[in-house]
């Protein structure tokens, strides 16, 4: 079951985030500020890594809507993380067309390389991974993406995955 977590730890939003919120809300007609909800949740997740209950409550307060309206949305859409993740979340496409060109082998390889199952976080806190549905890059599969920029890595091979993982480790340790 999907559930919201961490109803205790207070959350602060940065000035930059609040500036983004104001920009989002300005895009819709008067009184339709709820339309800003999805973009706001993306922005919060980009800054905080995931969406805690407290963070969502704060979003609700900003939009002048009920917390449940935010939880409803956050639990419906697959991109929102309802618990902490690794610093880098490797999201591999697992849908049919990518499987025709070896996506399943890539997922097995990632599981072995990182040593954690789908959805778990590595001990150093750097990585987690999961299968996601078609990423609209089927001609260039197997593919994976890494948020919050959603950078794409196409035509994956076990070797290119290894390079990616070691590059990310190097980046994180600098």
């Amino acid at each position, binding site marked *: 079951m999907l559930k919201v977590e961490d109803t205790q730890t207070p959350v602060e939003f940065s000035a930059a985030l609040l500036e983004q919120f104001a920009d989002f809300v300005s895009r819709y007609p008067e009184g339709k500020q709820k339309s800003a909800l*999805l973009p706001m949740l993306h922005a919060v997740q980009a800054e905080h890594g995931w969406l805690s209950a407290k963070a969502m409550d704060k979003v609700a307060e900003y939009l002048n809507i009920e917390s449940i309206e935010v939880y409803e949305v956050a639990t419906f*859409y697959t991109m929102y993380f309802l618990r902490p993740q690794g610093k880098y979340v490797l999201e591999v496409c697992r849908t049919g067309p990518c*499987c025709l*060109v070896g996506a399943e082998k890539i997922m097995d390889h990632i599981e072995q390389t990182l040593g954690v199952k789908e959805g778990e976080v590595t001990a150093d806190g750097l990585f987690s991974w999961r299968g996601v*549905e*078609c990423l609209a890059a*089927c001609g260039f599969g197997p593919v994976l993406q890494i948020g919050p920029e959603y950078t794409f890595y196409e035509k994956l091979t076990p070797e290119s995955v290894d390079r990616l993982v070691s590059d990310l480790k190097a980046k994180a340790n600098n």
Partner: protein
Amino acid sequence: MGRKLLLEHINVPGINTLEVYRQKGGYAAMEKALKTLTPDEVVEEVKKSGLRGRGGAGFPTGMKWSFLAKPEGVPRYLVCNADESEPGTFKDRYLMTHIPHLLIEGMIIASFALGAKTSYIYVRGEMMPQIRILERAIAEAKNAGFLGKNILGTGYDLELYVQPGGGAYICGEETALIESLEGKRGNPRIKPPFPAIAGLYGCPTVVNNVESIAATVPIIRDGGDEYAKIGIGRSTGTKLISAGGNLVKPGVYEIELGVPVEEFIYSDEYCGGIANGKRLKAVVAGGSSVPILPANLILKTIEGNARVMSYEGLSEGGFVSGTMMGSGGFIAFDEDQCIVRNTWNFTRFYHHESCGQCSPCREGTGWMEKVLHRLEMGHGKMSDMDLLVDVSKKIEGNTICPLGDAAAWPVASAIRHFRDEFEWHVTNGAEAVSHNYGLAHYADPLPKPEAAV
């Protein structure tokens, strides 16, 4: 070489910038529309072009525009559907990445035609890089006076915004998309009322696919009649095909509608044949939702004629021996692919993506996934195939939105055309997990049907 209307300049360095896009004639169609045509005349040109919606359903775009309600004092909206989540489809991402101004120009033309003063491009949330690209292009266009107040001194005002989704296939369905744009879960609405009457914020709304909107640029530039000369029959113009799977050259191709499927797969101008010297086993021609066909039926119709890439050509033979154009997601399977496994994978996808409002879809997709999984794992029963067909029939036509049909058709068609492969999974359960069934007779030419002799 076929004519290119959308991707003609795709390889020009810097075509993603306003400057280069304009050097190649960009924004001239927009200027023509705003300065020399009335909104109704723009709608008329699009009607004459015969353009059919490129998002999957193929509904004539001009006609859809003319249905838009225009009550006094109520805003109207144009929303571009850039959710592109149908497995096998990746043309919209390609277009937005490489030639974003084509979409922006189309949005201005279409918004003008519909009388929209605020328009949105709803892009699936995973496409953050494309969202950045579009936002940069919008800023450039605004700077040049193509967006904002009093565009080109014509008195027409338009604001254009990009909206990210949250990762949900169902938000490609137009009413779910509208719900999502309103900041809610993507639950499709019951129709009627149609969006043309009550869409975004309860106001008249048109939802169009990225490619449909981009196509209005060459239509206005050359005129609807010129556009209609390209293509075949009621399939006018060019179409972007996303070619994936086991092909030598997968990628996005712009074809003139009417190209033979065989030429599309094997000629060097397009996909260059099947990868690794293998043979073709099957094709899903229009995205995961359309019926799968074995090689012999995708290359030739049951009458023995060459099948062509057009709305009518792909659907020739109906659901008995044909398929559909859908969104143009063309997925080729080589002889080593397992049809049962792919069918299970697709069904898992639909189960995962069902919004859960209708029991036949929510429960039916789950049951089909379970049964297909046991078949693929070698634990199936001979009665499972009939069970699957039965469940698929109970979903089809009994749901709020077409996702139910989209989940039912791939299963029903796989069993229709590849029943022997499913049966082999039952009789040879242990083998089925270790290797694949192979090509059988799926690639052999079909015997001439009795009636045609």
